[in-house]
């Protein structure tokens, strides 16, 4: 396990470069992101450990970062002052562009993985904005009317994006649909829909709504989205059956789940980061064989675990809230990086913690 200290700054987001296997970006904030400056670190993984290649300071806290998919030296940062900033790591100090449109804190930024010419941001102001890096103003604003902690483009289509927000809903937008009344909204799924009752377990009732903080599209199955948040549960949904409720419900985290990300290598594996100071690896049970014995008996070990999904391992080396986690896209499957409020970035191999 490699370690780097973001001295004086509490981590909020970590992202591997899509171009280089040895480069990581970290968005961090002074004073736990409550008040004060932000900083983007560009870290290099070297035989001598993790070294800082560069950093950029900002006036307000930073809550997320994402690498450009079209330019290997550029990355975005989501700022507490409502701005979205584009940095170029070959230049010093200042962002090459800063877009100030959101009325409140920006909580997520994400680059279009297919189109590569657009990116999005989501904010506490209840909107998602679509941007082109060459335009001065946003291309589109999609209202969610609710503090939107996380928004993402589909990795399978340039015009489909999704969000989760504090109103406990997973929204899917399709930019090909007419804007008209629905503002491209094509799906609005209550995350707190109870799972389908299974034989041998009582039907869960009265699942309360709860703030959703993070979500991610499965990289292989183009209709599967995982969500997680304040109710400590990770759920997976199939957007082909939006009314069917979650297909997997994964419980284990002891506090809110702050970040989840599907494996770029394995279709059933996802990684989570939580306020309970752990990162955990999960299978949603969709891979062949997992959970099949229990399925035949139609009796679940744990009534909250559906479809045979389960926790595969836990990484407990952080000593404060874990807020960011990401997979390395290159090399052997399993390498990942995490960051948190303990002012540390950890780079580790999750195969080491899997049982």
């Amino acid at each position, binding site marked *: 396990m490699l370690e780097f200290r973001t001295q004086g700054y509490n981590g909020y987001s970590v992202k591997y470069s899509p171009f280089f296997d040895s480069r990581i970006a970290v968005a961090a904030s002074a004073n736990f992101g409550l008040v004060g400056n932000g900083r983007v670190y560009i870290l290099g993984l070297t035989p001598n450990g993790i070294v800082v290649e560069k950093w950029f300071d900002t006036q307000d806290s930073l809550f997320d970062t994402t690498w450009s998919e079209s330019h290997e030296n550029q990355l975005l940062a989501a700022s507490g002052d409502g701005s979205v900033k584009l940095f170029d790591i070959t230049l010093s100090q200042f962002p090459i562009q800063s877009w100030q449109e959101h009325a409140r804190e920006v909580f997520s930024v994400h680059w279009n993985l297919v189109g590569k010419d657009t990116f999005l941001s989501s904010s506490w102001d209840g909107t998602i904005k679509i941007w082109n890096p060459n335009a001065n103003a946003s291309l589109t604003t999609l209202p969610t009317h609710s503090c939107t902690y996380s928004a993402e483009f589909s990795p399978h289509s340039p015009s489909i994006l999704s969000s989760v927000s504090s109103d406990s809903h997973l929204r899917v937008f399709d930019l090909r649909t007419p804007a008209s009344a629905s503002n491209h909204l094509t799906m609005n799924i209550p995350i707190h829909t109870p799972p389908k009752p299974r034989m041998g377990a009582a039907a869960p009732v009265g699942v309360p709504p709860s703030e959703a903080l993070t979500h991610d599209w499965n990289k292989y199955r183009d209709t599967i989205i995982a969500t997680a948040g304040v109710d400590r549960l990770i759920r997976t949904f199939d957007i082909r059956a939006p009314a069917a409720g979650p297909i997997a419900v994964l419980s284990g985290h002891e506090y*809110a789940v702050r970040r989840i990300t599907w494996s770029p290598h394995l279709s059933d594996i996802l990684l989570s980061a939580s306020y309970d100071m752990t990162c955990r690896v999960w299978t949603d049970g969709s891979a062949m064989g997992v959970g099949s014995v229990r399925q035949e008996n139609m009796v679940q070990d744990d009534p909250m675990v559906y479809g045979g999904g389960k926790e595969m391992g836990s990484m407990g080396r952080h000593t404060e809230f874990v807020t960011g986690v990401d997979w390395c896209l290159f090399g052997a499957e399993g390498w990942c990086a995490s960051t948190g409020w303990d002012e540390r970035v950890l780079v580790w191999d999750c195969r080491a913690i899997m049982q």
Partner: protein
Amino acid sequence: MAHSSTQRLEMLSRQLNPQSTNDAKARILEKRPDDVVICVALRTALTKARKGAFKDTKLEGLLVPLLKGVRERTHFDTELVEEIVVGNVLHKDSTFITRASAIAAGFPATTAISTVSRWCSSGLLAVEAVAHKIAARSIDIGIAVGAESMSTNRDGGAPEFPDSFMENPTIKDVTELMPWTSENVARDFNVLRQKQDEYAAASFQKAEKTQKTGLFQDEILPITTKWKDPKNGEMKDVVADRDDGIRYGTTKEALGKIRPAFPQWPPATTTGGNASQITDGAAAVLLMRRSVAEQLKVPVLGKFVASTVIGLEPRIMGIGPSIAIPKLLKKVKLEKEDIDVFEINEAFASMLVYCVEKLGLDPATVNPRGGAIAFGHPLACTGARQIVTALAELKSSGKKIGVTSMCVGTGMGMASLIVSEQ
């Protein structure tokens, strides 16, 4: 800047302790896909037994037009109604009548029926039955009805019990008449006649005001029925569209002059003016799961949150609401101050006075449209009628949370909690 950091801190603490800001009331007001919601709520007029518009209308004559009324207010396929549960106390063949009436009202043979009874709480018992079936997913959509024709079905009281039963004083109390229990409440808890008349007069005055402002029209489905003119014996069509028991200009002084109805039972405070009237009527509530309502695009009036029941000594059965309501509120973790409207059935003014004062309720929140003293208590109708009235009152006053409750003959109290979403 300081402002935004405080808000960020609040956001983080909310993420860590969702319970801290998510109090019981907020949770009850939440809209969840598996909520049991009320989509139609309406009633017939309540008319005096043996005098009013329904005096020659049998149980089916109440059920068929009311069920038709419910059907006409829904725009989805009638076949989707899986069960109709009717609360009825007095008709000995109520289950047959219900099956036939559902078909006569245009429901297909695939819509099942059942009947329930727990005396004065039968209407609420029917609502509870449908709500529980929906919550347990045995059905998705159901109709609960409370219906009573007191004109055409005699209240025979308790059956004859064997001596071994009657030797038990509590069982003996079960066989006693309701006014006797009212006098027991007045005596045991020292509820003065004057106070009873004061509450009774208030009931008439509130009902009079509601009727004159036309607000009861939100609740009532007008029904045309046959009525036999006592003067010449002719049958004619009449429209039952208003409650006929509400005596305008009633004052506590006027009620104070009425002779005690039961001088044999001291303190003999119960009169024809401060007890519920004997009345015909019916009320219906259509319930479904919220996810189904959203799918069918059916507008939602409110949700049915919880209900409970509790027994007590039969000799003071009237005070049932004073223990059923606290039990209910404890279950849902609410305080009485959280409740905007209480519908407490006015079986007798004695129990009404006791319950309101024992619970320490603000009288302005109790029966704001008047109650059974003013417009009658058709036994099984009342529980469903209270839901209809509470929803209409919550709508017109722009408020949210309602509790309905009633005392039950033989010593019980039932209560329910609903939330208006209008």
